[in-house]
């Protein structure tokens, strides 16, 4: 793989850009791999990447039924933060945030990580108490956040209506190191690095069955034939229950639609990420100038990658109260993704009832921010059978009642 650098740009400029290589190969599947990762989204690709980089396991295939990064990785609102309440969450999300800081250099691929700062607005007394509690928890967890008063909120986000009356801003939980990254680039960067390590990216290859023998995984059936494997990592977000069904077990997961939409592009108007969880809305401005807006999930099981229109209307209506300046903007595009929701709104990184099969799912509405940390922990789990970062996110927590409850403080926008 030729490295991307300013010298490469200069060199190619002198020869009509004829020397750029393909970023990743599209090989034919081999007969057998040590590890098969199902799902070439951010989490699947990151899992494969750290398997190779940290654990030296490079005979790996990443199987994807569509195109890489075409699911939730390409559909989210690109927010990165780690201001969670519970210790296990803070550990894995903060690991992810820290890895994002050096990811462009690590992958030699510009993921456009932009730690522009992130505010979670408190718009009720209850939220104010909740976020202050989160700040105290974060301080104990070595996650840098602080509580800021309305005056400072207004200074950071001048377009914000802090007076109310319906949704007054009483302060905010501020994570200065939070921000955004370019979501496609994260998938592409990991894919390029995986391909460079000799891993096989098999796009347009659908897994149709999981083959087991004596309670142990031996391979998968795909639309391009059977492939054997030593271990299988299922990292497919919304379709986790479908894959688990093929392997013969059920997951505590329900798939639902989550939508996002963007406005027409405008001049720079907001340079931080703002989350208003009381009204189920969050907003940031992309480099193109579009206001990127997300809301809450629909309430019913759904695999259709489209959601209910009234959620778009409700979220936009509520955000207009908080940001009156956006009231005349036209909304440009709207889309949906299928998210995998758990009861406690925390992910599942776990062994399964079938030996050799591991699942990484349940990231629900907030997986993008976790991609590097999730991949790092999942790779360790697959390679060694144990990962300290993943230990408390196992399926055992549902049997034992050891939930990692992240739904109380903010049931939306994780």
């Amino acid at each position, binding site marked *: 793989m030729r490295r991307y650098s300013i010298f490469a740009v200069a060199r190619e400029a002198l020869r009509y850009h004829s020397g750029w290589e393909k970023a990743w190969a599209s090989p034919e599947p081999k007969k057998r791999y040590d590890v098969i990762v199902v799902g070439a989204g951010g989490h699947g690709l990151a899992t494969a990447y750290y398997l190779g980089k940290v654990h030296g396991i490079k005979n790996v295939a990443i199987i994807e039924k569509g195109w890489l990064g075409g699911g939730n990785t390409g559909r989210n609102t690109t927010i990165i933060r780690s201001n969670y309440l519970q210790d296990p969450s803070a550990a894995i999300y903060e690991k992810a945030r820290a890895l994002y800081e050096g990811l462009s250099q690590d992958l030699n691929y510009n993921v456009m990580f932009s730690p522009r700062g992130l505010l979670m607005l408190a718009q009720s007394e209850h939220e104010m108490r909740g976020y202050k509690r989160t700040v105290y928890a974060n301080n104990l967890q070595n996650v840098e956040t602080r509580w800021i008063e309305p005056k400072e909120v207004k200074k950071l986000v001048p377009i914000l209506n802090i007076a109310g009356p319906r949704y007054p801003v009483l302060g905010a939980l501020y994570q200065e190191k939070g921000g955004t990254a370019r979501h496609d680039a994260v998938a592409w960067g990991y894919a390029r690095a995986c391909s460079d390590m000799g891993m096989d990216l098999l796009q347009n290859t659908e897994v149709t069955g999981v083959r087991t023998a004596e309670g142990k995984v031996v391979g998968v059936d795909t639309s391009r034939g059977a492939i054997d494997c030593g271990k299988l990592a299922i990292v497919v977000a919304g379709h986790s229950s*479908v894959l688990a069904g093929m392997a013969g077990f*059920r997951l505590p997961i329900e798939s639902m639609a989550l939508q996002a939409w963007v406005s027409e592009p405008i001049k720079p108007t907001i340079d931080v990420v703002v989350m208003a969880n009381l009204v189920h809305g969050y907003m940031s401005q992309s480099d193109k100038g579009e206001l990127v807006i997300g809301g809450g999930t629909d309430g019913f*099981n*759904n695999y259709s990658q489209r959601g*209910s*229109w*009234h959620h778009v209307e409700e979220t936009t209506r509520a955000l207009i109260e908080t940001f009156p300046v956006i009231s005349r903007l036209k909304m440009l595009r709207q889309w949906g993704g299928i998210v995998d929701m758990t*009861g406690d709104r925390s992910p599942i990184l776990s062994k399964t009832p079938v030996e050799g099969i591991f699942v990484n799912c349940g990231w629900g509405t907030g997986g993008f921010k976790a991609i590097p940390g999730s991949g790092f922990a999942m790779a360790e789990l697959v390679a060694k059978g144990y990962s300290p970062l993943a230990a408390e996110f196992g399926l055992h927590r549902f049997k034992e009642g050891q939930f990692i409850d992240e739904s109380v403080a903010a049931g939306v926008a994780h």
Partner: protein
Amino acid sequence: MLTLTCPCCGVTVEETELAPGGEAHLKRFGPGASDADFETYMFARKNPKGVHFERWRHAYGCGKWFLAARCTVTWEVFGTYPAQTSEPPAELIAKIKEKRPGWEGWK
């Protein structure tokens, strides 16, 4: 937008008038049950890609719970029926089988 007919009051309404209540026909386990049964009842979900039996409440109408058979991919509604039953009506199952020959059944 999803529209369902409430079998209790007979009104056909859109989703904004309804509250979703998750998977239907869960077999309940309580005190004295095994850990595995209790865990399955509490958390394990079919979450099918296809025909799904689910609970709904006519929240801004008659207020009653009812059940619906719906496709989670196409949003096609096969039928709705009152909640006072432990399994779907036979004629509804027959109707779904006719429409979806490959369907693996409701259990």
